[in-house]
């Protein structure tokens, strides 16, 4: 914990002739104290953020009696797989999982493509009605999903998509907030990037696909994460677009567990196990992409 980065050291060194040096030492030691406080704060915060999940996993391996009597400990006294055996052996949990997977993959792929296309058009292409389109998208963003519950069911039903994967997937393919995010990002990319390709005769799609999109990686990753999470975690849409048990997703299934589908007791180990497994895919997704999120925006345009 040296207290300064390379760049700060360089700066300080560069400044050396101009700034009087005695203050430097005091500045450095003060910085170290700040650093220690910063790390202490970060660690406390991290514990607050992580502990609930550790307890969740721990409890899923406890017996129900222990979950009630000793909720806070991270090491089960009686280690049992009962909750997991019950979920995978004697419930529809695997079906829920498969459905969530299918829907999520389709929605994420479609959304990333459509949303970035539209975001690019709204940020860069000049066409009559662009302002109107953007205003419409923003307005739609403000439409509460619950306004749509009843009529969404009617539309899906009318189109013959009720209780089918199509009805679950297609309405989720587009997300106004994603368009908003992509548009903001594309606007932050300097126009000069495209000028050259445009002069070379590249069409709009080619410009989008091979020049601008690769640069939008940080924003795209944000969209991937948000869509993956969004569709994996979607609940209300599946409540109105499906009814058959074969199409139940994890959210619907686990919500039914939470509201007491299980017969007796609080059954915390099973509920928490169900919720924990449900978290794994999105967590894995995040760990995979996390590295990319770190180096955003570097090297967009040089010179």
């Amino acid at each position: 914990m040296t207290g300064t980065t390379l760049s700060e050291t360089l700066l300080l060194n560069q400044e050396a002739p101009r700034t009087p040096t005695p203050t430097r030492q005091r500045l450095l030691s003060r910085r170290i104290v700040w650093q220690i406080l910063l790390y202490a704060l970060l660690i406390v915060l991290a514990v607050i953020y992580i502990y609930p999940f550790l307890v969740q996993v721990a409890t899923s391996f406890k017996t129900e009696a222990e979950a009630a009597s000793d909720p806070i400990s991270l090491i089960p006294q009686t280690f049992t797989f009962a909750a997991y055996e019950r979920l995978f052996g004697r419930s529809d949990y695997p079906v829920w999982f498969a459905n969530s997977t299918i829907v999520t993959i389709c929605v994420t792929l479609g959304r990333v493509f459509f949303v970035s296309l539209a975001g690019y058009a709204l940020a860069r292409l000049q066409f009559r009605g662009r302002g109107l389109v953007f205003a419409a998208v923003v307005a739609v963003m403000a439409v509460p999903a619950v306004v749509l519950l009843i009529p969404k069911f009617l539309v899906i039903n009318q189109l013959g998509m009720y209780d089918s994967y199509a009805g679950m997937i297609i309405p989720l393919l587009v997300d106004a907030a994603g368009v908003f995010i992509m548009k903001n990002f594309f606007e932050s990319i300097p126009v000069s990037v495209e000028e050259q390709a445009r002069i070379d005769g590249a069409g709009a799609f080619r410009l989008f696909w091979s020049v601008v999109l690769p640069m939008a990686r940080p924003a795209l990753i944000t969209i991937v994460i948000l869509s993956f999470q969004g569709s994996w975690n979607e609940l209300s849409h599946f409540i109105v677009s499906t009814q058959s048990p074969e199409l139940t997703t994890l959210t619907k299934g686990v919500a039914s567990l939470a509201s007491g589908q299980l017969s007796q007791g609080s059954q915390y180990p099973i509920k928490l196990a169900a919720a924990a497994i449900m978290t794994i895919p999105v967590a894995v997704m995040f760990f995979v992409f996390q590295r990319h999120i770190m180096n955003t925006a570097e090297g967009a345009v040089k010179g």
Partner: protein
Amino acid sequence: MTATAVAPRRAGKARKGLRRGEALAGWLFTGPVLIILGVFLLIPVVMALWVSFSDWSGRGSPFSSGVSFVGLENYAAITTDGGLPTRDFGTALRNNGWYVLLVVPLQTALALFLAVLVNRAILRGRGFFRTAFYFPSVTSTVAITVLWLFLFSANGVVNEALSWIGISGPNWWADPSGIVHNGLAAVGVTQGPPVLTENDFLGLSWWDWLAGPSVAMTALILMAVFTTSGTFMLLFIAALQNIGSEIQEAAMMDGANGWQRFWRVTLPQLRPTLFTVITLGLIGCWQVYDQIYTGTQGGPGKTTMTPAYLSYTSAFLGQDWGQGAAIAFILFAIIVAFTAFQRWVLRERPVSKRRARQYQQPSRPSTASPAVAASARVPSVPEPTTTDPTKEDER
């Protein structure tokens, strides 16, 4: 089209020729989004609007001949009739209002705070911290509600932790008392002044409006802050990284301390992201539904009932489709009003235009080499005494 596109370019009208075909591309690019939004958002909204003015019973099509127009009847039932629907709606608005009032500022401030903390280049293990803070956001509301029900149960983790410091925690999910009322009761005020208790709005006395979120709702508020701060932190981090470090370094050279750098250099550049975060936060907070559906179902004592959930129960469970749709539209209006209001609050004020321009000038450091950026008059945080507009403008 290519032929026609090429000709004018050769003729020298470069700009126009280069931009040819953009109209078509623009519509093609936005087409899929527009179609899907139209079919699954716009058309349903129109249908819902009609339902809110009709006596549709939920059977058959709402456009069939048996369904008739009832005007504002559904809206009146929930706003002015003073009956149970009015009272329920008032209660739901009260609950959600407190939820918004507490969650939006807390989640925005916390997200920005976390982003600034973990965005430091110096920080060791920032990947770890970032993961830790983002982790709750990847969890679905359903999963986290299940976890929260456990954590905040009467003998749960939270109460056990509270008992270590001598506090006997409430029975969170069964406690309908408002925290503002509880706070007042602690200083001996258990009854409101007559002016508050005797006048009411939407079937709820003003004293009840000021009750604050119930203890149960407070647990949900903590949950919302816990789960959303990570997502918004990501947006702030992305924005912070777009800002680039040149201006920061220049400000450092000018002798600005960390606090000044944050308020005068970083924050003004984050304005668009701040706008996005607060907008998304407001929109999200007025739609609390999943956690109520999974967890409390509006209880205890209807203190976690929200307009979104009330709309669902009125329509799907109570078969009052018109009222359900009407609630949804009032909610819609509230969200639009709030978004407009916060847009107005966060607008660029004429007074600060000059200031804003100072900050925006170098706001795309990535276009320039560091040398150019450094020379680009990085205005940032002059000491208060030396702020001189004329000097800032010479170039």
